[in-house]
Each structure stands twice: as C-alpha cells, then as structure tokens.
C-alpha cells in the first residue's frame, strides 16, 4: 500500500477550487452567448423573413436549417404523432444537425476556451488526488463528486469536437460547479487509504463505468429539459403566440434534440448495464451473493429499468417526444437519488463510513 502524500492532497484541493472558479467564469460566458446569439439569430431571421417576402428565398446565411423549419423538423415519418414536428416553425431554432455554422460566436468561443482551461486544472486536481492517495480517485463521496464532475465536463468537451452542443454549456458547467462546491463543502474528506471492502480491481472497473454513464446521462438530461422547453416554445410559435423563451433560439428543434439524446442514452444504457453486471460480479466476490436488493442495487436496477423504458418508449405509439423526454428526466432524477440519498440516508452496504 503506497504511502499517503498529504502535500499532493492539498495541491489537489487547490486545483479543484481553481477549476470551480474557472468554470464559473466559463458559465457566465456561456450565459452571455445564449443571450447574445439569440439576438443575432433573431436579426438574421428577420432579414431572412424580409427577403423571403420579396424573393421567396428563405435561406439565411449559414443557417439553412433554421429558416427551413419545416424540413428540419420532419422526422421519422409514420412513427407516431409528433406535435413538435408537425408544426412549421418560422425562424425558431438553430440548425437541427448540430454542426458548427459559419457565424462567429465570440462569447461561446471564450466560454469553450475557458472550459478547456478549467478541465485541464480539474484534471490536475484529480491526478494529484490519485497520486496523493496512491490509488484511483473514486473511493468516497468527495472523490466521486470531483472525478464525476471532471468526467462530465470532459465528455461534454469531447462531444463538442463532433457537434455544436455549446447551447448545453450553462447546464453542464452549472452542474459541475454544484458538484465541486458540494464536494468541498459537504463531503470533504482528506486523502486516505481505502477500507478493505473497496480494495478490489472491480472498484476501478465498476465505478469508472458508472461515472462515465452518469456523465452521459447528465448530457441527455440537459437535452431532454431543453427538448421540453423547445417543444413548448415551438407549439407557442406555431400557434402564432409571442416568443417568450427567446434564448432558446440557439437551441436546435425538439426533434433533433430528442434524436441525439436517444443516441447518447443508448450508449449510456449499455454503460449502465455493464455497471449493473460488474457491480453484481463484485458483490458476489465481496458479499457472497450477486444480488441482494441492497438499496444501492435497488436504485441501480430502477435506473436501468427506467432507461430501458425510455428506449422502448421510442418504439411505442404515443410515447415518443415529450413523454420519452420525461422518462429520460425521471431516469436522471433516479441517478441523483442513487448518488445522494442512497449513499447518505438509506441504510445499506453502500453506506460509506465517514462518506
């Protein structure tokens, strides 16, 4: 068992605070982008509307999808009723393919740059924690939170390489900041060794996959919330009412959000299936039975079933769209309960002494 290095542990805490600070500035920049870009988009849309009145050309520079709201929102035909897609939204949403567009969004670029800086500092924090303890940095609540926040932001940045999901920035960073603050304030634990029950290579496998899946669920949760908002807004716009959620202009239409969150949820569901299975294998090694309805096992199972329901809902008449989004949100609520209440309030084998 390698010796504990307290100095590294103290550096780690400093890095965590610095990361949280950087994220806060990035969060503000993302919020600024939401406000500013919506305005820019509105101007572009107005111009497009003006030109379309005279020339019937509805293609705005760099934003093909938005002006062609109808074509954009046309999803899988013959599947189920889709209130969100049946409406032709005029100048309502960002491009549905979530590819980077031509226009420069300076605040968003600043925000992403700051997030990259933050995640590097955060990585240093996680790494020094691991080196200080001489083991993987996920052995208690403090470490789950700090490492989990790091993975969530890192996954977000990795998806940004392929898709323009910068509209999720406030959501993801807001959550990361909450996690880091909660870790430092409520769950602070000094660097230390693991109790015998956690000394297993399954800790590395089981928990890392759980954290990764949770990070993906975080992304889809944010997207599902936005999907509901956008769906409400699109209905409003379709009915000719005033746009009271103007910042949602930067966000793609509800159907595109639903489709992408489905794809991410599918990956996360496989991850969660592995979490469950590896957890069962570890439980067999540690406690002699692979399943015993311990509170943690119960909630891991509940999460699995809810997301299984979500995947099935996509193939069920009347359950796509808004209802599926609600299932995704309920699933994430269960993830949160599983992490917070189950670890602290419920009496079970996963209750951590000293957290």
């Amino acid at each position, binding site marked *: 068992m390698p010796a504990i290095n307290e100095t590294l542990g103290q550096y780690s805490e400093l890095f965590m605070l610095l990361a949280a600070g950087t994220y806060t500035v990035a969060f503000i920049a993302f919020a600024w982008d939401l406000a500013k870009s919506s305005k820019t988009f509105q101007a572009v849309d107005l111009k497009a509307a003006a030109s379309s009145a005279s020339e019937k050309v509805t293609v705005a520079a760099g934003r093909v999808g938005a002006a062609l709201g109808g074509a954009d929102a046309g999803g899988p035909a013959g599947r189920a009723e889709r209130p969100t897609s049946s409406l032709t939204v005029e100048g309502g949403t960002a491009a549905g393919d979530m590819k980077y567009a031509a226009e420069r969004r300076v605040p968003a670029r600043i925000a992403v740059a700051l997030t990259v800086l933050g995640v590097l500092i955060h990585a240093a924090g996680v790494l020094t924690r691991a080196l200080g303890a001489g083991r993987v940095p996920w052995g208690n609540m403090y470490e789950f939170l700090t490492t989990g926040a790091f993975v969530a932001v890192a996954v977000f940045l990795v998806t940004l390489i392929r898709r323009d999901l910068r509209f999720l920035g406030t959501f993801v960073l807001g959550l990361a900041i909450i996690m880091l603050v909660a870790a430092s304030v409520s769950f602070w634990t000094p660097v230390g060794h693991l109790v015998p029950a956690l000394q297993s290579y399954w800790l590395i496998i089981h928990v890392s996959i759980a954290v990764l899946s949770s990070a993906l669920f975080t992304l889809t949760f944010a997207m599902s919330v936005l999907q509901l908002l956008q769906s409400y807004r699109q209905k409003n716009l379709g009915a000719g009412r005033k746009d009271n959620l103007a910042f949602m202009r930067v966000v793609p239409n509800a159907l595109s959000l639903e*489709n992408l969150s489905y794809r991410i949820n599918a990956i996360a569901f496989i991850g969660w299936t592995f979490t469950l299975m590896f957890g069962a294998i570890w439980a067999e090694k540690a406690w002699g039975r692979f399943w015993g309805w311990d509170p943690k096992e119960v909630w891991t*199972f509940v999460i699995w079933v809810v997301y299984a329901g979500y995947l099935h809902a996509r193939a069920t008449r009347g359950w796509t769209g808004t209802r599926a989004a609600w299932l995704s949100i309920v699933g994430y609520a269960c993830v949160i309960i599983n992490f917070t209440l189950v670890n602290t309030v419920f009496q079970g084998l996963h209750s951590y002494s000293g957290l």
Partner: protein
Amino acid sequence: MSESVKAKKKSPSAESATAEGTTGEGKLQQAKSEAALPALGFKGMLRWAWTQLTSMRTALFLLLMLAVGAVPGSLFPQRPANPAVVTQYIKDNPSYGQFLDALQLYDVYSSAWFSAIYILLFISLIGCVTPRAIAHYKAMKSQPPRTPKRLSRLPEYGTLALPADAGIPASKAINDAAGLLRKRGYRVEVRNADGDLPSLGAERGFLKEVGNLVFHTSLIGVLVSVAVGGLFGYSGQRILVEGDTFVNTLVGYDQFTPGTNFQSSSLQPYSMQLDKFDAKFDRESPGKAGQPIDYTAEVTTKETPDSPAKKETLKVNDPVSLGGTSLYLTGNGYAPMVTVRDGEGNVSFQGPVIAKVQGDNYYSSVVIKVPDAKPEQLGFVGFFLPTALVTSDGISFSGAPELVNPQLSLNSFYGDLGLDKGVPQNVFELDVEKLKPLNNRNLAAGGITLTPGATVNLPEGKGSITFDGVKKYIGVDIHHNPGQLYALIFGLLAVAGLMTSLYVNRRRVWVRTGTHTDGRTMVEYGLLARGEDHRLAGEAAALRELFAREWNLPETPQAPSTTAVSSSTSKDQ
C-alpha cells in the same frame, strides 16, 4: 416489442380523444350508449386479453411499474436482509408498522404484487419474443421485398447516368451493383435481369433483430438462473475464533438458510481452520486514524476429512473456494477468553466469548451464560473495550481499534437462565428479568472491571471470573449458488444482444437500371431503414461512391439530405 400488434389495433384512447375533440362531450356519450359491445365469447376474451398483455404499451407500463414497485424495498427494512431490524421497526412504529406488513412492504421482492408485476412482464415478453422470432426466421429465409415502383419516395434516393460510350448496358449495370452490394454484406436478389428495367432488392442487418431477441431471451434466462439458485442453493454463517475449525455439516453452521430443494447430503464435509487473523488500521492519514485498511485471515483447509491440509489466505474481496461453495470474510471482532468458577470452586466455563461489535473502535457487547455453575446458574452482561478510555464525565469508551488497554466491564446475575427448558435463546442476549443481580454499579459490590490476567470474586460466594486474554474472531459467510454461473452467462449474452440490436442497422436497398432514349444507362437507387438508423444517409453516400468508382463516373457529390441528423425509419410497417 410487438410492432405488428401495434399496427393492427388502433388505440382506443386516441380515438376517443379525437372524438371528444371534434364532436363534443354530448355526442360522445350518445355514441357510447348506442354502440353495442361486440360479442367476443370466451375464446375471444382470451385472445383480447393476450393481445392486450403482449402489446408494447402494456409491456412499457409493466416495465415502469417494475421500477416503481422496486423502490419501497429501499425505503423500508427488508426481512431477507435483516429480520431483526424489521421486528424492531414494527415495534417502533406501532401506528402503521403492522399495516405495512400486511402490504408485504417488508418482503417487497417476494411479495404477491411485485411477483405479479414481473411475472406478467415476463409473460408479455415471451408473448412478444416468440412471434417475433418466428417472423424473423421467416424473413431471414425469404428474399428481399419486391422493388417499389417509385424509389424516389424512399428516405434516401439517388440517380446515376452512365454515358452511352461506356458500354455498360442496363443488365450489366444491375449485375455490377449486385456484386458490389453482396461484397458489402447485403443479401441480393436480381429481378428481370434481361428485361427493360432490371432491378435488384437487397437487405442486410438481420443480426439486429437476432440481437434484440437474444437480449430479451437472455433476460428470461437470468430470471430462471436466479430461480435455480433459490431452489438448489444454500447459505450460512459461522463465527470462527482463532484456533476454531469449521466443518461443512449442518451442525457446523451458526445460521443456515437452505434453498427450497436443499438436501443435507449435498454438503461436502470439508473443513477450514482459522489459524490467525490480522487487522491493520490506518495510522497515517489525518482524520482517518483507526480506519481499517487490511483484514487478513490465515486458514488451513481440507477438501475432505482425509485430504491433505492446505494453507490459504482469506481476505475481503478474495473468498476461498471449497467443495462447490465459497467462503467469505464478512466480519471480525475480539473474543475475550474467560474462566468462570462456580460457588463450589469448579471451573464451569472456560473459553472465548464472542464480543459483538456495537460501536466505534470495536466497542463490543459481551454476554456470558454459565448454566453449569452450581449451586446457582450465573450470567454476565457487559462490554469489551480493546482500548479502554474514560471521558471526563466518567463514561468508558474505546479509543482505538487495537488492543492497547483491553478491558471487560460486566454486571453479573444468578438464578435460572431458562436454558434447561430447551427453548432456543439468542446467545448474544441475556434476559435478566427473572435473575437476581450480583454485581452492578448500583449495588454495594459494584460492577466488575477486568484487565487481562485479573480475577474478581463474586459476592455471596457465588464464584469468580477470570479474564485470561483476548483472541480474535472472524465472521464467515458460506454460499453455494448453482444458478450463479448461468446468470453470468445469460447476463453477458444479454449485453452482447443489446449492443448488436442497438448498433447493427437493418437496411434495404433497391436499384433499378434502364436505358435512356439517348443511349445512356440510367441507374436509380433507394435506401430504407428498419428501426432507428441515423447513419442511413452515410450509407447512401458510401454506396454512391462505390457505384461511381465501379463505373468510372466523375465524383458528383449529391446535395446532402436535409434530414442529416434525424433518424430515418421504415414506412413499410
């Protein structure tokens, strides 16, 4: 699950909803009263019930019910996990404790309602999987569906024109396309190859549905494996003090939970002796001092009474396997060695006493029953502290988990312990109600406080007690679960099936060729996906590139489809 069922029946709720919307409440009521219920008959009712049960909607509902139904098991204490806690809970909450019991909320996972949910779900699942398996088997044996008249209506569509001087007639073009598609893993059928408008139908991705079926079937397999474990498995506990030997026979267990079909003859009489137990505690990290960092038990095992002895190490997360069972290190504590002499001066008790851990730093409770003491039976209740310290208020506590200053603090009693009646008693509890106190802090004699080696004489010449020393004990769980391996195999199969069903795409391609009046050979193709397939557009582009290369056409990238990110799905169902 069952898409065919879904397509056939129209949702009654949706219908009524639209009726309400268009005709208004009054008319709906009227229509309802006028509508005569169709006579279904008994068979019809059964068929109706079956259709309902196997519909996707019901399956989804049952699935969500399963999630909701599982939750109470984490809110209330559960009997299988800890029956004593449940009894205490009912005692502590007299107003609703019994009521919850009547709802089986302390046995959620074996309750009638939870069983009903999962049994219905699995019946629904079987009802879905079986017809789908048959349908898929037929689909795999049949040829791709006929070429649609208008390929341009498919979600992905494209055309190519081969110049007249290229010398590729329509029939050769279709055969070239067939070859390319076959290489790409498609199953291809060429139609009307020598006619005016030769065409081909191609399909791939049959594994998607296979994966889907394997996933759902494996879940049934997991359930059956769990049931097998419950029928033929067994588990038990045994506390072993250093030097003790556990022999795998029914009497060797402190507690034994047999499966429904367990037979005692299936116990192989192996043995395991605890030679030494070591616990290491953290003395390094601040704020975590005294936290355990290692438990190691040195044991000697024998597969059968006659086999050679073998030295093994038993650790947490590292069980020992013996005779088809696994032995787990699940607990440990201190066992003070005690000698009790009775009023006649004879040794009436000698040996280790299991001190049950109650609080921090092995603050443990001790109960000693001495039924052999004469003239009066003796009983002791108290605490063992490995590192005894006293607070400023005079309260004893254990300051460290190690044996720095071991101390036994006991009250003593005499009288009838009630053991002679043959009624089983909890060894960790002493019912002092009918006993007369000898030692406690309220009596003149005071309580007994012992350090190793010390002896205290009991008042009234009832005898004496000596604290000889301290040994360590471990708690061992013994498990045998014959369903376990199968559960793992089915679990792995389920994951493999799940990944296949989510990431293999089932696609159909049709190609039609013909000769233009100006001599060019015209090629059109269309693609259709069955199920979610966000990469259909990519496949169309890939096919186009393949065709262009085959026929030496200049690369003319077609305008990308507008539905780049939205999934394309089948329209043919």
